[in-house]
């Protein structure tokens, strides 16, 4: 333990909020020194910028077909006008990839946010009340976890019908138990810690202890998990779209869907499968690297 950490631990007893601010600062510094975190953050920045400014970046319309140069199984490859070539509908592949970032980011963020919100509420309920509420919520979560994630997502998406919204909900549902369990176990650990014991002995109300002390201090692993879930959400959403559960409008440039379509042309136009695959891998890698680095930075056990 370094001196600063001892000091931080000391202040934590008196001013837990200040201590958490110090911890955050600390974590951020460690993060900056981790090259993998820098790579991850850069990938995410590029991904987010591309998604935000897609209409400015994309050279062509990503939706309208132009069959002029298309023949069965043969599409013009990369050229000066179309850097990544044309797809089976004669659309610029690069423009579709750029617009695709919007859908992946949107689906990833919204489904993670939905899953986290519901999961955290349930976890808070279980962690705060304990007893039969805890048992009830956690057994329900166990039941959900017993079904393989992708299978559950397919079931939910199939039930809701084909649309982007149903993909978001499906991915969110899969992640609800993950967040609920994580927050609950984190809160249980915090609940038994010395500072909680001391605040309780000072006569602070339970509600204030849970919301003002236990919850904020239990959120660190949740933030790490959210970053990692964002990565898997993008893959899961692409997977669902690949399986044909995406929007009823096949013209929407969604990466998973784009990958599925290239199946038929794999022997003649293999590059068309490479681009959406690469886009999915890179965006997922970004969130994953950042998530892992965050976990290392925030986990005291991994500190060197």
């Amino acid at each position: 333990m370094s001196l600063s950490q001892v000091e931080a631990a000391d202040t934590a007893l008196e001013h837990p909020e200040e201590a958490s601010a110090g911890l955050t600062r600390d974590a951020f510094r460690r993060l900056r020194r981790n090259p993998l975190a820098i790579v991850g953050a850069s990938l995410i920045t590029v991904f987010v910028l591309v998604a935000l400014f897609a209409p400015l970046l994309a050279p062509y319309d990503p939706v309208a077909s132009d069959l002029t140069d298309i023949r069965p199984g043969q599409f013009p490859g990369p050229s000066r006008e179309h850097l990544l070539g044309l797809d089976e509908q004669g659309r610029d592949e690069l423009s579709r990839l750029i617009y695709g970032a919007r859908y992946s980011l949107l689906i990833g963020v919204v489904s993670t946010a939905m899953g986290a919100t519901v999961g955290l509420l349930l976890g808070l309920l279980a962690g705060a009340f304990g007893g039969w509420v805890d048992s009830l919520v956690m057994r329900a979560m166990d039941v959900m976890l017993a079904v393989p994630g992708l299978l559950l997502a397919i079931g939910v998406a199939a039930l809701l019908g084909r649309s982007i919204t149903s993909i978001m909900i499906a991915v969110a549902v899969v992640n609800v138990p993950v967040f609920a369990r994580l927050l609950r176990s984190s809160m249980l650990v915090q609940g038994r810690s010395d500072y909680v014991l001391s605040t309780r002995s000072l006569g602070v109300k339970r509600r204030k202890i849970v919301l003002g002390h236990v919850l904020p201090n239990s959120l660190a692993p949740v933030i790490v998990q959210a970053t990692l879930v964002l990565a898997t959400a993008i893959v899961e959403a692409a997977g669902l779209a690949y399986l044909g559960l995406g929007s009823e409008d096949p013209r929407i440039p969604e990466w998973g869907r784009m990958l599925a379509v290239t199946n038929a042309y794999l022997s003649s136009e293999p590059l068309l499968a490479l681009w959406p695959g690469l886009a999915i891998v890179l965006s997922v890698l970004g969130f994953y690297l950042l998530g892992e680095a965050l976990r290392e930075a925030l986990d005291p056990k991994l500190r060197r």
Partner: protein
Amino acid sequence: MRHRPAAAVGLLALSASLLAACGGDDSGSEGGGGAAGGTLVFGASADPVSLDGAYTSDGESARVQRQIFETLVTTAPGGTEIEPLLATEYTPSDDGLAWTFTLRDGVQFHDGTPMDAAAVCFNFDRWYNFSGVQQSSSVSYYWQTVFSGYAQNEDPELPQSLYASCEAPDATTAVINLTSPSSSFLAGLALPAFSIASPKALEEFGADDVSGTGETPSFDGTFGTTDAVGTGPFRLESNEPGTSVVLVRNEDYWGEKARLERLIFQPIADGPARRQALEAGQIQGYDLVDPADLGALESGGFQLLERPAFNVGYLAFNTAKPPLDNPKVRQAVAHALNRQALVDAQYPPGSEVAKEFMPPELFGYAEDVPEYPYDVERAKQLLAESGVANPTIEFFYPTDVSRPYMPNPEANFQAFTSDLEAAGFTVTPRSAPWNPEYLDTVQSGGASMYLLGWTGDFGDPDNFVGTFFRTQQAAWGPLAPEIYSQLEAARTEGDLEARTAAYEEANRTIMEFLPGVPYVHTSPSLAFAPNVSGYEPSPVGLEEFASVSLG
């Protein structure tokens, strides 16, 4: 275990090529017809369901049946005109209710029994008296298509049978009596489903022993599996599902004998595997070549034969649903679609843009129907004239399906949607899995605009425009009444010339009304080894291997 089937296939290929080589030597030493004899292995996409034509409706079964059995009439090689086969002449009575077939004299079944009028009537009465599972529409599909009902209909929804009875006044005259005049049934008789089989064999080998359900019938007799006795140029030697169907030349054939000594149908389910088998010399031909493979096969020196288009792909309107009840809106849609671009981009070479609901090979096809060429400005103008502000159309397309007339429905949907949006329409995409959701939605009238198509069963216009438009259907909504009356009159007309004119007139009326936009007739391709000759592709898939030889 994984390697076993491959080894077996390899062995078969080896023996086949050896046999082929022997055959070649024989003919060489005889110095006769040049190319008589030898073995040809044809790559089928599946096993025949049954060799009894009465029980099947798929192309792979029909292909094999056609070589073993013969029908009263057949289609001209490479065409759809009806020609004599087992019957040398056929004439309807004046009221059109009795058809007299004069049979070829001296024809014998493979088991030596005579093919006479009694045998013909035995076959027709057998089909007419089908019962139980045999009456299921998936088991005796073509009997229902052509003759509607049975002696005793077990499903009350089945209509009265068109067939009434069969008489055999003498050995070479069979008279088939109908319950109402029909001119389309003659073309139907060319289907392998109406193959004349040996009555002795049908009884001996339990052809009528069928159990199970309509969806999964179980054929308990051996007729149609290991026994099949007809009059055709080839006899069945062996039939091992999953391995091969082996046919040998019928040396007692009444007409010109087959040139090949043996004909083997080997099932290879996977498309790319069929191509590889042909390239490896394991098979000498296969059907339904993937358009993407055409280039590679051509440069490899293989022969590519085009089967004349006998299908139509169309964008259908449900005229009961606004705004498609408005003729100007329908015309605007037709002008908005760039059909040529779609056909060039998605269909094999030789496919053509359709301008009416039946293929050009068929009689009754009219050259001078109203046409709606690609013209976005005209579409916008028509839309403005229609008075429909902000036209929004629900556009249905099927998923999980590929049809000759629609290899990739999603691609067609995207191309047409882009075209429609360019002309000012708003399109709401709707999709469903092909079977049963999509077909159910369409047939119950739930879809306003949808992609569909049709492959012809036999060479009669009633099988195209009659199927679509002769009666009012929920899928199309109400059409102009004269369409129904013209098609009904054309169906029963006895004289071919008058029938042709009647169908041409009906086609003009249909395209004037515009119940949908036909957009493609496609030509599927077959590939053969360079030394195969004499194969004439038929639009309805009824090809004779008797004239095929190995050079």
